[in-house]
């Protein structure tokens, strides 16, 4: 297991990158602590797979260094880095049996056959494929195949890190849940350094201790699931995490109040915002729907099971509010913003609030 330092890494797929937009990874500088479970979360094309492939050595970064336990390994090959990686779509060796598929990474490294057998059997039990050990891998279903891919990632115990590139895309929802909790369990037992790429927030939030949110080639926030929810550092994090995402309203500041059109909203403190476009962000969970506050027109109520999502119009802006499953929308609905859930953004980045 290793601590991974990503040292000012930039990467471009073009031979001669000039502008900032030529870079798939603008600049990433971050440390993955030894034994941590990280999720790289972001929309498609934000550079998360690029970052993962740079860590595993499948890509060589245009600029910057990569360190394992303080040792510069930027120029080492994938084989020399001793990393396990699981890909989005199942990769299996068609002609081999399930057992041989799992044994392959060990045999390539000349592990004694007795150890191979022990490790493979352990892994087979873990991914619940012990019954298929002797079967040829090509006859299996897609999720069985992906379990084999997963198993090949887990079979070596001496790896520096295990990287997952959206590994559960092809797995059906029930199995997803089971496999994810198995990975989590495995992490607790063996304290592997794990990096898990996904665009699914539920997956990221349930798997990882720390979530790294990426947007347009940059890391916009690193934090625990709770931090990402309560204090999104960037409006993108607010939109992207949460269902529905954070409400963002353009406002003008005046001491402890924010003016939104003709409305005045009390803030919990004085924002330390300099010039720039100022926005107020509030999660639907902190929007209180009732008989007092600012008048809204309710356009739609979505019942999502445990709670209801109310879509309403506030001064020409669409906002969302979450109410309890048994709550009713009042006849003349009004909303109030809970000060605990208010964040202020200047040029999309969150600003602190003073007393």
């Amino acid at each position, binding site marked *: 297991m290793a601590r991974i330092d990503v040292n000012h890494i930039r990467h471009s797929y073009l031979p001669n990158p000039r502008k900032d937009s030529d870079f798939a990874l603008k600049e990433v500088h971050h440390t993955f602590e030894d034994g941590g479970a990280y999720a790289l979360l972001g929309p498609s094309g934000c550079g998360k797979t690029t970052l993962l492939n740079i860590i*595993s050595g499948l890509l060589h970064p245009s600029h910057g260094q990569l360190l394992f336990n303080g040792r510069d390994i930027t120029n080492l*090959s994938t084989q020399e880095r001793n*990393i396990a990686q699981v*890909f989005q779509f199942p990769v299996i*060796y068609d002609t081999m049996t399930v057992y041989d598929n799992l044994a392959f990474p060990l045999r390539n490294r000349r592990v004694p056959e007795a150890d191979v057998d022990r490790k493979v059997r352990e892994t087979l039990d873990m991914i619940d494929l012990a019954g298929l050990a002797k079967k040829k891998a090509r*006859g299996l279903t897609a999720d069985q195949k992906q379990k084999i891919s997963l198993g090949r990632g887990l079979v070596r115990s001496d790896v520096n890190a295990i990287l997952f590139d959206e590994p559960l895309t092809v797995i059906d929802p029930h199995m997803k849940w089971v496999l994810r909790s198995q990975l989590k369990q495995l992490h607790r037992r063996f304290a592997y350094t794990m990096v898990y790429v996904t665009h699914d927030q539920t997956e990221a939030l349930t798997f990882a201790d720390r979530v790294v949110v990426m947007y347009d080639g940059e890391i916009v926030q690193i934090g625990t699931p709770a931090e990402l929810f309560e204090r999104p550092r960037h409006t993108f994090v607010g939109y992207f995490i949460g269902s529905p995402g954070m409400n963002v309203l353009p406002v003008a500041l005046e001491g402890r109040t924010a003016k939104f059109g003709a409305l005045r909203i009390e803030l919990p403190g004085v924002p330390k915002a300099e010039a720039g476009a100022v926005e107020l962000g509030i999660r639907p969970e902190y929007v209180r729907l009732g008989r007092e506050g600012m008048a809204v027109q309710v356009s739609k109520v979505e019942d999502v099971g445990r709670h209801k999502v109310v879509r309403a119009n506030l001064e020409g802006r669409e906002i969302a509010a979450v109410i309890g499953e048994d709550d009713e929308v009042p006849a003349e609905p009004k909303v109030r913003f809970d000060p605990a859930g208010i964040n202020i953004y200047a040029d999309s980045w969150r600003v602190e609030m003073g007393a």
Partner: protein
Amino acid sequence: MDKTWNNKAWFLVLPVLVLVAFSAVIPLMTVVNYSVQDTFGNNVFFWAGTEWFEELLHSNRFWEAMVRNLIFSFIILAIEVPLGIFIALNMPKKGWGVPVCLVLMALPLLVPWNVVGTIWQVFGRNDIGLLGYYINALGIDYNYVQDPFDAWVTVIVMDVWHWTSLVVLLCYAGLVSIPDAFYQAAKIDGASRWAVFRYIQLPKMQRVLLIAVLLRFMDSFMIYTEPFVVTGGGPGNSTTFLSIDLVKTALGQFDLGPAAAMSLVYFLIILLLSWVFYTVMTNYDAER
């Protein structure tokens, strides 16, 4: 029993039936007819029964041509298949090199058989041929007209030049269909170059390789034009393959009976081998 019988369908099949009858069935039956009769010309035929077949199966000439043909096919496959795989593995996968390589590879396949024969016939001559002249100039005694070994080398090199491309193109098609993730996973798993070939590339090429082997075997077993143009089956009978022998018998000596019997046996051998290949391939599919 409420199945509807509609005999109109026969009219729709009839054109194809007529076509097949004229192009295949009737000529084949003519050959069958010749194979059991003898003639001294003037369209007078005598019943000969199985005489020609017995004679053929006891004839050294036939078996020698057969053995020569099998050896030829074996050598061709042993060279063209590994060479084809090797070239396909080393062809570029992207960039401007791809179309260049593909066109270069396709060129020999576009040349008509008898032109290929003529090219090599001239190319290998030791008086005016570029190849023959310089080989002799290097001090190697090379003469495909007189030396059976040289004749074989020439015919084999010519076939390799002409047909390896087919194997290359088929293998290349198999190779480019392998997603990048497989190579990446192999790197992660610490696979050697050989392991990548053995467990990723070869399995993906298996199907196209079967087709390549089948096609090359059939073609080389029926080879006629090129060796006929280059060596005419000589020196002696050293490059007389089955088809050349057949034409000599049928047209050279005008022995219709023996030639017809030989055609039928030849036809049956090819039919048998096609069936073997077909069975192997469909079994392979069923296993998947």
